[in-house]
């Protein structure tokens, strides 16, 4: 773990949607490795590197809240865009919100805080001037200054994530005494395998002393 980083992330709300309950969204109890990777990539990412989440510390008690919103059901169809492009006008190319309305509830997390422990690996896209030190420096510099590529979020974009780099040797932030220290969280999404037609891969998430050890991506414990 020589290139490891630790990032403290927190926010008022979060929604790490369970794939089996994604219509009326229900969040997992904790952040998924996939969402944690997304936060790191929002701060720094290049095709030359791949983030690997090693450990997730859960600092706050797991609490939920329900929010129901008006959403639209449909997606934009590329066929109708092509037609509009050909016709050279945007007339008629629109979604009428009140015709395509769905009311959906979301069960989201309240007041979350995590520490993400992660490192990165160089991919085969790495060129001669991509060194581990360079990318680590860029990440640390940005995280220290609060810089990011786009604002990182806790699962969905309406729940922004605040973050702070935990420097080497610096202690972890204090955990809430009422937080869950041990719990079997069941099968949880590890990440999506984009190389193989977006196959989701799952692992058995166990919270032990407030920490989830994330198994290696190609490990035995990860099933698709």
């Amino acid at each position: 773990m020589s290139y490891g980083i630790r990032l403290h992330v927190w926010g008022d709300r979060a929604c790490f949607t369970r794939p089996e309950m994604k219509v009326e969204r229900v969040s997992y109890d904790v952040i998924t490795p996939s969402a944690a990777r997304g936060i790191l990539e929002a701060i720094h990412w290049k095709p030359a590197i791949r983030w690997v989440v090693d450990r997730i510390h859960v600092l706050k008690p797991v609490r939920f809240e329900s929010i129901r919103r008006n959403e639209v059901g449909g997606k934009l169809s590329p066929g109708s865009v092509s037609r509009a492009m050909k016709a050279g006008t945007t007339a008629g190319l629109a979604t009428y919100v009140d015709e395509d309305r769905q009311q959906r509830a979301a069960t989201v997390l309240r007041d979350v805080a995590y520490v993400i422990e992660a490192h990165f690996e160089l991919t085969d896209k790495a060129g001669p001037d991509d060194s581990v030190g360079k990318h680590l420096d860029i990440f640390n510099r940005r995280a220290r200054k609060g810089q990011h590529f786009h604002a990182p979020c806790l699962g969905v974009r309406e729940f922004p994530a605040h973050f702070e780099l935990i420097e080497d040797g610096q202690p972890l932030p204090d955990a809430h005494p009422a937080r869950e220290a041990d719990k079997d969280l069941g099968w949880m999404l590890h990440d999506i395998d984009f190389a193989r037609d977006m196959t989701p891969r799952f692992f058995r998430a166990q919270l032990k002393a407030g920490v989830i050890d994330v198994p290696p991506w190609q490990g035995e414990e990860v099933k698709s």
Partner: protein
Amino acid sequence: MTAIAHRYEFVYLFDVTNGNPNGDPDAGNLPRLDPETNCGLVTDVALKRKIRNFVTLDKDGGPGFAIYMQEKAVLNNQHKRAYDALEIKPEDKKLPKDEAKAREITAWMCANFFDVRTFGAVMTTGINAGQVRGPVQLAFATSVEPVLPLEISITRMAVTTEKEAEAQSGDNRTMGRKHILPYGLYRAHGFVSAKLAERTGFSDDDLQLLWNALINMFEHDRSAARGEMAARKLIVFEHENAMGNAPAHVLFDAVKVQRAEGTEDRPARNFADYRVSVDAEAMPKGVSVRELL
């Protein structure tokens, strides 16, 4: 259009007097409440809706400012003018399978639709390029203090159907309910990413339009339910660097909303009961604050 070169964050304060800023469909259209704190909530999508509606009114669907997600009430299709569309090979009728075509479609949508360029959109191309992440991100707005929803009963001197009239033997009166907040000052946080703006072509003019929309949108969103809503403050943080010069939460923390002196012991009923201060001293290097409202 050249994209914006700086990252921005903003704090947006708006208030409501005797109205319902955002109804909760789960609670019979009561104003949204955070059950733990009793503070009021306004969702990000409610605010985005008003931004879209304002742009529709302001630009009237002019070139580059069409709105994809429309409400019928503001639909104004006949006024739409011809567009500076791209020259596209007409023979290609199939759905875009290749990435280049998908990108072309995405680029066209971004160039023509303000809301796609600003907030993003999802297109079903099956390729990742069909999904646009917009540079502008809004979080839920929360009231500064707990709010008190009131239920107001109202009467109507008419009925809808004949059957109802018969049941009332000609009395023809119905009761309805309105939910209002006597007063609530809400605070919303927003983010504008320069890097995502590069990808959608969100320009400085677009940014001006966004500020303009935030400042003026409630002026064009009057209704029986809303009561009096008004934008009160728009505090914008501009980072020198496109990636940013400081963490967002540090900037947000520099904006304090407190009760005005001598009003602490009674419920707030207007904006004068609050005092907004921006700690300019606490601004990190490379970040400039501007109060646009």
